[in-house]
């Protein structure tokens, strides 16, 4: 009798516990909820560009010969387009220009910078002449740009890179800029200057800005711009006949670098 009573009590207590648990659970679940959701997506852009010479190629007014090798840049920030210039049959006051088209083929603005590497110069000269001395008389403007509209260069609108105004020419080279067809005369710099003073064109290994036709030095996606490389020989080369027949292959390399423009 006692045993059956105990069993009954235990059963009742168990049932009460089950009921209590259910009640508690019901209370907890009874909170109403709602959600607000923000669904987002981000698609990254891309930086792609290339450099190609125009149909003009080297435009020399003389028999002086230039040769140029261009390595097209790859994709991505910091991709470098390499222009290696050979110089042969040079003579005082000879000059030439090369036009390169820069295309922004990506989806974000690029900022083109450059630096000149003279360490690659490989020069030869007849007799006892110092071949590398020829480097003292090579003048270079590694680039200024002009807007490019539907295949027509608008020379009236180009501007010379501001950095060129800071170039110095300790040898006071006397070379007349005959650039009536190219606008305002430019200040050139000798390769010797470039090699001797890293502070001129290569500031602490930081490339120097060259693209200046837009206020922000930017080539927008889908746009083109042109880099005009000018190279000439100083008139002072006339006083160094021992350099006749000297040549540099290459004389220098110009590294053009595209970086993504910040907002």
């Amino acid at each position, binding site marked *: 009798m006692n045993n059956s009573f105990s069993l009954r009590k235990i059963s009742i207590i168990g049932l009460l516990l089950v009921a209590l648990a259910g009640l508690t659970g019901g209370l907890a679940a009874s*909170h*109403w*909820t*709602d*959600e*607000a*959701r*923000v*669904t*987002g*997506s*981000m*698609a*990254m*852009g*891309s*930086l792609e560009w290339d450099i190609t010479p125009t149909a003009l190629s080297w435009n020399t007014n003389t028999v002086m010969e230039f040769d140029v090798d261009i390595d097209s840049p790859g*994709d*991505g*920030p910091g991709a470098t387009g390499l222009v290696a210039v050979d110089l042969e049959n040079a003579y005082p006051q000879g000059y030439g220009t090369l036009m390169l088209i820069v295309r922004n083929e990506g*989806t*974000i*603005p690029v900022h083109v910078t450059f630096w000149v590497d003279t360490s690659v110069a490989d020069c030869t000269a007849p007799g006892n002449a110092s071949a590398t001395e020829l480097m003292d008389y090579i003048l270079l403007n590694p680039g200024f740009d002009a807007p490019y509209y539907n295949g027509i260069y608008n020379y009236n609108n180009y501007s010379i890179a501001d950095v060129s105004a800071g170039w110095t020419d300790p040898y006071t080279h006397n070379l007349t800029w005959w650039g009536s067809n190219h606008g305002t005369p430019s200040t050139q710099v000798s390769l010797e200057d470039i090699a001797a003073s890293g502070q001129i064109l290569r500031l602490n290994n930081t490339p120097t800005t060259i693209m200046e036709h837009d*206020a*922000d030095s*930017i080539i*927008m*996606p889908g746009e083109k711009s042109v880099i005009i490389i000018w190279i000439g020989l100083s008139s002072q080369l006339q006083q160094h006949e021992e350099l006749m027949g000297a040549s540099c292959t290459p004389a220098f390399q110009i590294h053009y670098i595209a970086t*993504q*423009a*910040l*907002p």
Partner: protein
Amino acid sequence: MDRSRKVAALIAMIPLLLLVAGGLAVSHWDDEVQVTGSVAMGTFNVQMSLEDTSDNEGSLDVGHVNAHLYTYNDGDDPLDGGYNDGLYINLSNVYPGYEACIEFNVENTGTIPAALSNTSVAFNSTFDWSSYAKYFNITLYYHYNGTWMQIAHVDSIGNWQADYDFIADPLGLTTLTPGEAEYFKLCAGLTAEPVNPPESLMGQSLSFAYTLAWIQAVP
């Protein structure tokens, strides 16, 4: 009369006795006090409204942000009036340094108080998100006393970190009374120098779902 007949007679009298007894009961005077009640349930619902979109571009306008409201069915209750409980954000042509911000309101359109119980972000990407999380800035702000106060962000390993204890809610920010709205801002973009994203992110895409879970405030 034998015994069996007596029993039969008694059995036959039982209905008669019951009728008499019922008659006696009905014959009592009575009255009733009736309490008539009705219970109308409240509604629990939050809705969003889009306030503004912007980015940090100046003249170099190549990145784009757009946003629109939609109805996100959270599955809790089809009758919760979940209209405009979703906000879709699309950032395109994103690049290092680009950041877009979307300002939105969350309003308690129900009739009972709501409290923010949890926030979470889920990512889905075409690349290994965990390896690149540090290059993404995704931050949630709350407009408080005229300034934007950061309350949560994605950390350098891709986890959603609360910068404000919205459960304890010491400033009383995240409880909405009926009709009340809170002003949020979600900003997303890519880092720039000195934490420059690698080229391998170019052309990739990332999607994310940011959820604000609201729960009925306990009385």
